[in-house]
């Protein structure tokens, strides 16, 4: 059974860097790893996407090791408005079956 796991929750203070890791041990060979942010009662919102090594955009960085069995989302200098649930999403395979699998989600709470 494909499993994609993340820490349940993390606390941080404003201005700190936050790193959230996701383990996706059954990731399909040639697909992206994507991270989403979700606020209460809203749909997930795209943060960043990568295939391997490091990707950076204006809001985050994504680190993916060579084996691609995990990925780490890095949020520099978080603010109170970054309090949300963060999900990784990967295409996982189990035998011949493939499906998009969200991680279990990490509730990030940013404290003043």
């Amino acid at each position, binding site marked *: 059974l494909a499993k994609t796991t993340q820490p349940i929750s993390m606390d941080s203070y404003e201005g700190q860097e936050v790193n959230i890791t996701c383990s996706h041990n059954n990731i399909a060979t040639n697909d992206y790893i994507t991270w989403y942010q979700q606020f209460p009662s809203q749909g997930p919102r795209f943060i960043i996407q990568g295939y391997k090594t490091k990707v950076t955009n204006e809001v985050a960085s994504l680190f993916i090791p060579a084996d691609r069995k995990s990925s780490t989302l890095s949020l520099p200098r978080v603010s109170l408005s970054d309090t949300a649930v963060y999900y990784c999403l990967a295409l996982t395979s189990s035998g011949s079956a*493939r*499906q*998009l699998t*969200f991680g*279990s989600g990490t509730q990030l709470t940013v404290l003043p």
Partner: protein
Amino acid sequence: EPEVTQTPSHQVTQMGQEVILRCVPISNHLYFYWYRQILGQKVEFLVSFYNNEISEKSEIFDDQFSVERPDGSNFTLKIRSTKLEDSAMYFCASSEELEGSSGAAYNEQFFGPGTRLTVL
């Protein structure tokens, strides 16, 4: 900025009834998805759809579920005979076709605001 829309925002139905949830994806997108999120739990993939057929589906997406793109703009999820455990938020998403030949299947997805389905 273009966005995915979903109707209705809240649907209440009796157990055993059929429901159809509607989505209007972003107009130039070619990939469409349905997800569900039971209250307090993670987002779960149901199905992906491309070129008028299902690309991938999860074990949740059994014979009670079906998807359709009845015209050029709508994408629907039908649940034939609802059960209490179908109560959840249902999200539609769409994405552009990936450029190049990386072999990757899925690009950045844009999610709608969701339909809350309550089965009584």
